[in-house]
């Protein structure tokens, strides 16, 4: 038995088998298609075209819109073929791809993480390439939109879409409350008055919420801006909100909308924060059960993409759009927090071809039609970051979408700080706002914590990059 076993497990046989397996594996690897995956890609390779990879952060209709335009590019080409991969918005995938020397050639990114990744050397600066393209000059863009992609003296991406926030109201709810459905609140005092009238309570709880400042998600940045506050100093790249009276006022105002369990005189619009936090009013955001569509919330601060969502999910909703109310004494301003940009990751193997595609995407078509980028904005109802494109009739002429666009044209806009700790800032704003609503911290403490913690993170990020915060 022993001899039998030994002979069957002999070293010679083992080595032979191992070599055979290895050769087999190598053969399969050799056969495995390296570049081409779809018939179109194989065709493109056969034609001698260079295949470049585009990582899209979007899924659903936004991806479909982008894909249709990329298909148009691919049809027009005999040199380049763009392969689109849906990757989502998680940044660790890009990081590991860059660290593993296999980055995509282009990736679409949320502008809020651009500085964080740029500081770590994730992207190729684009300013020199942009000089070649007459349609990518700084003067053509909304000033705040251009700043979203600039950091540390370089331009790290081409901004594709920008957003802005308006007040949306349910006209039927206004009628039922005896309010004029064509007259939305213009000031914070009016907003409070309307919120009180539109809040309907019953024994089972609140039937209809008038207005909740932290719906559909944390809007701490927006309210700071609307109250005339300054979150950060663009020159130092550091937050200054800790001692900004307007920011502190905006935080106190948000707090006034949450019921204080120790007080007997809560405002009539005050609500329980536990029942009104993000996603807790019932119904998925992108569905017919969105609380604004079902009438659970009468007024909400939302972005221009609702011009696509509402006709799709709540076609019967009678709604209006107006600029977000502000305190009477504060000069008009608007919020344009984030955007989406295309960037070329460091280590891209086809950076020139990637640039070729980007130039096509952001320039008007040779036959005089608008740029694919502006078509993309139209298809997904986002605002084009180039002023000239935003002025196109298809954007500004829409009675609802036009309100969003006009406020960007008529008012100064504030965007989220382009600092390497932007993601941290967004998280800590949300956290401190929650602590504020539960009265764990005061508005002053919240503002100071946001400033101190974020500045510490910013400094640490610069230090980690071997640099000193300029």
């Amino acid at each position, binding site marked *: 038995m022993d001899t039998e076993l030994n002979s069957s497990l002999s070293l010679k046989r083992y080595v032979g088998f191992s070599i055979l397996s290895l050769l087999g594996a190598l053969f399969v690897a050799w056969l495995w298609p390296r570049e081409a995956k779809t018939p179109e890609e194989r065709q493109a390779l056969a034609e001698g075209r260079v295949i470049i990879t585009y990582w899209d952060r979007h899924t659903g209709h936004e991806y479909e819109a982008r894909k249709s335009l990329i298909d148009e590019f691919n049809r027009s080409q005999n040199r380049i073929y763009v392969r689109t991969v849906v990757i989502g918005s998680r940044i660790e995938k890009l990081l590991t791809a860059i660290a593993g020397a296999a980055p995509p050639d282009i990736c679409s990114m949320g502008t809020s993480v651009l500085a964080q990744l740029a500081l770590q*050397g994730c992207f190729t600066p684009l300013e020199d390439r942009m000089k070649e393209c007459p349609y990518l000059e700084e003067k053509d863009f909304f000033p705040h939109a251009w700043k979203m992609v600039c950091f540390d003296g370089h331009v790290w991406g081409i901004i594709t879409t920008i957003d802005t926030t308006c007040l949306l109201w349910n006209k039927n709810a206004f009628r039922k409350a005896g309010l004029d459905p064509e007259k939305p609140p213009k000031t914070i005092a009016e907003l409070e008055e309307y919120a009180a009238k539109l809040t309907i309570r019953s024994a089972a709880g609140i039937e209809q919420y008038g207005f909740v400042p932290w719906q559909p998600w944390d809007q701490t940045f927006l309210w700071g801006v609307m109250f005339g506050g300054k979150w950060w100093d663009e020159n130092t790249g550091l937050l200054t909100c800790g001692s900004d009276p307007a920011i502190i006022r905006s935080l106190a105002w948000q707090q006034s909308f949450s019921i204080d369990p120790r007080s007997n005189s809560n405002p009539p619009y005050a609500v329980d924060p536990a029942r009104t936090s993000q996603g807790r009013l019932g119904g998925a955001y992108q569905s017919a059960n969105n609380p604004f569509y079902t009438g659970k919330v009468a007024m909400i601060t939302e972005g221009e993409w609702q011009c696509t969502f509402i006709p799709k999910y709540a076609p019967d909703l009678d709604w209006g759009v107006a600029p977000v109310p502000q305190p009477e004494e504060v000069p008009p301003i608007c919020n344009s927090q984030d955007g989406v940009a295309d960037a070329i990751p460091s280590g891209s193997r086809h950076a020139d071809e990637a640039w070729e595609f980007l130039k096509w995407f952001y320039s008007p078509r040779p036959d005089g039609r608008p740029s694919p980028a502006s078509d993309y904005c139209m298809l997904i109802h986002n605002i084009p970051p180039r002023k000239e494109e935003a002025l196109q009739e298809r954007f500004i002429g829409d009675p609802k979408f036009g309100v969003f666009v006009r406020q960007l044209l008529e008012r100064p806009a504030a965007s989220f700080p382009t600092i390497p700790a932007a993601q941290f800032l967004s998280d800590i704003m949300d956290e401190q706002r929650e602590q504020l609503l539960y009265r764990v911290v005061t508005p002053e403490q919240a503002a100071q914590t946001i400033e101190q913690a974020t500045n510490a993170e910013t400094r640490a990020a610069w230090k980690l990059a071997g640099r000193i915060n300029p």
Partner: protein
Amino acid sequence: MTRMERRNLVNGLLFASPYILGFLLFMLYPLAMSFYYSFCQYNVIAKPIWIGWDNYHELFRDSDFTTALYNTLYFTVFSVPLSLAFSIGLALLLNQKVNGMSIYRTIFFLPTIVPVVASAVLWLWVLTPDGGLLNGLLLQFFGIRGPGWIADPAWSKPSLILMNLWTVGTAVVIFLAGLAEVPKELYEVADIDGAGPWGKFRNVTLPLITPTILFNLVMGLIAAFQYFTQVYVMTNGTGSPAKSTLLYALYLYKTSFNYLKMGYASAMAWLLFLVIFAATVLVMVSSKRWVHYHGE
């Protein structure tokens, strides 16, 4: 060592080499590197910078770390014993001689095979404060306006503990195997001695399933300390409301993948390992007092 023995050793090692290589490359190397990174500042792209014990010192100054540790201990201390008691109770019920028992057993095991993300989304609907299934039932049948559950800092951790009871299927199956091991003669003896159902459970069943309890306790502890997916899905990765569901694994994830502080997160991971290791050793040492093996 004879020539034959040496040859056998070499052959044995060669045959085990795919596993050994895999273990070295995909387990030991990452483990060793994470230990090294725990003493570094590291963000994946740039080269790690050695900073000694700074990450560990920083952890004890980090209030979020303390919060995460407290939340995790709270969850573990309540969730593990409750899950054990619940799964023993279910196993006892599913151990009865009733027609169609295999169907009941399957039904109770079903939640365990539901993908975790899907079940988390489902629970989100059940626990929605206004219009959620649970609060709807409470209002309809008892006239009670239920709490905010996962959205209320006071109720969020109890909600997670409650949710965790839904997936005790695996423990129940193991307990069923343990119950099948209890010799029938002992129940007969207990019957002769006039023991009631409680007496039989307390003096026969429970002592004899203690090895199974020990196994489920250790596994439960490890799982509770690493509880992540449900809370990530249900709070959108934030640990809200007011950090009340910021569990250790979630904070570790945020630190590493949101803020790219891989060194700091590695230090957290090693500390978690130490905590789990200490808890397991404690349970194993104490088990000598309360675990009874057959034939001992």
